[in-house]
């Protein structure tokens, strides 16, 4: 059977927080293995779109599909299980557990996925190595630079072997050169692993690492830049 041409699809989704609408009928598709950048100014609804696609919360109306099944009609526990097993996340400030070491942070989701302890730490060391952090596994996150911490977050997300990786302003707290390193590693490794990436950013230089970019304005996807031929 052929793989589906669409891995994610949001169909005319709307979402409000109280009286404030964040999405007003957003529609977007993401192909398997594609790196999609969702761009837009602050308050445009781009992060809300990411959260709906990732099943963090369902939209108020419209549909979200993942790999041929409705995601928005799953129960909260079903969505949580899906996020733990199929999705990886990288946020602006890493969201690492500060009391744990870099290796603990990467191994933790693997342990939650019921991997054996030895295997989880072996995988953690391998991914830290791939992200240029060999020898830093024993450091607590407070002892790492911003760029190193963000690379730990990428390692943690990819170590799970996710179908998709969601990144929300992954370089927002980094300087230009460090942000470039993180984006090179994130997109390079995702392409190598065939992981679909949805990255939300207001920074067009970050978006330029993607295969395709869409623009969100006032809660609607207003433009699709399209795929730039390699």
């Amino acid at each position, binding site marked *: 059977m052929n793989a589906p041409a669409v891995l994610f699809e949001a169909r005319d989704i709307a979402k409000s927080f109280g009286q404030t609408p964040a999405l007003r009928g957003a529609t977007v598709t993401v192909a398997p293995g594609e790196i999609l950048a969702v761009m837009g100014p602050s308050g445009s609804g781009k992060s809300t779109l990411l959260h709906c696609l990732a099943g963090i919360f369902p939209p108020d109306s419209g549909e979200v599909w993942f790999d041929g099944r409705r995601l928005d009609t799953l129960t909260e526990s079903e969505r949580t299980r899906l996020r733990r097993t199929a999705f990886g996340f990288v946020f602006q400030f890493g969201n690492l557990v500060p009391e744990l070491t870099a290796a603990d942070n990467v191994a933790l989701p693997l342990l939650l996925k019921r991997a054996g302890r030895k295997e989880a730490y072996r995988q953690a060391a391998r991914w830290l190595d791939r992200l240029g952090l060999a020898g830093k596994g024993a450091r607590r996150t407070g002892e790492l630079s911003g760029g190193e911490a963000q690379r730990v977050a990428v390692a943690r997300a990819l170590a799970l072997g996710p179908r998709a990786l969601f990144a929300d302003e992954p370089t927002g707290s980094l300087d230009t050169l460090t942000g470039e390193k993180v984006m090179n590693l994130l997109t390079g490794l995702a392409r190598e692993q065939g992981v679909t990436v949805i990255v939300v950013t207001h920074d*067009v*230089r970050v978006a330029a690492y993607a295969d395709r970019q869409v623009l969100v304005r006032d809660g609607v996807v207003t433009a699709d830049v399209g795929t730039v031929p390699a």
Partner: protein
Amino acid sequence: MSVSLTLLGLLERQPSYGYDLKRAYDTYFARGKPLSFGQVYTTLARLARDGKAIAGPPEHGDGPDRKRYSITEAGLADVDRWLTTPAEPEPHLQPVLFAKVTLALMLGRPADSYLDAQRVAHIKRMTELTRLKGAGSLVDTLLADYGLFHLEADLRWIDLTAARLNDLREMVRDL
């Protein structure tokens, strides 16, 4: 920036004398480099020769005789093509972007669509340059960085201009 297309765009708004065209051009597009009368009349003569504009009969007044110029169908097509085709993304585009947006507003055309098309062209070019950085040498990277930062500056200008279109529309309407 193309002086002849800008003058042609001003003619689309209304048939005009050379003096009025120069005044409108200098007000909005010259930025300290006003057109000489010679340049205006040479450009109008060339536009008339190429069938883009038509000179009316000489009109007698207090001063020297003057002619009122009108745009032709071929001229209208040229202006339309120029305004709706995104400029090739490259550094230092500000004069041409500014001219297109201002003219689009003067002519009641959808300036926001033009800005959207230009934004897409810029992002595509930035994606190409980012790939070049990944595949090329350090020299390629440095050159690509230069292009990327300038294109980013253009994009920020495009975003801000899009947010100011209503104010700009009000301003040019009174010209």
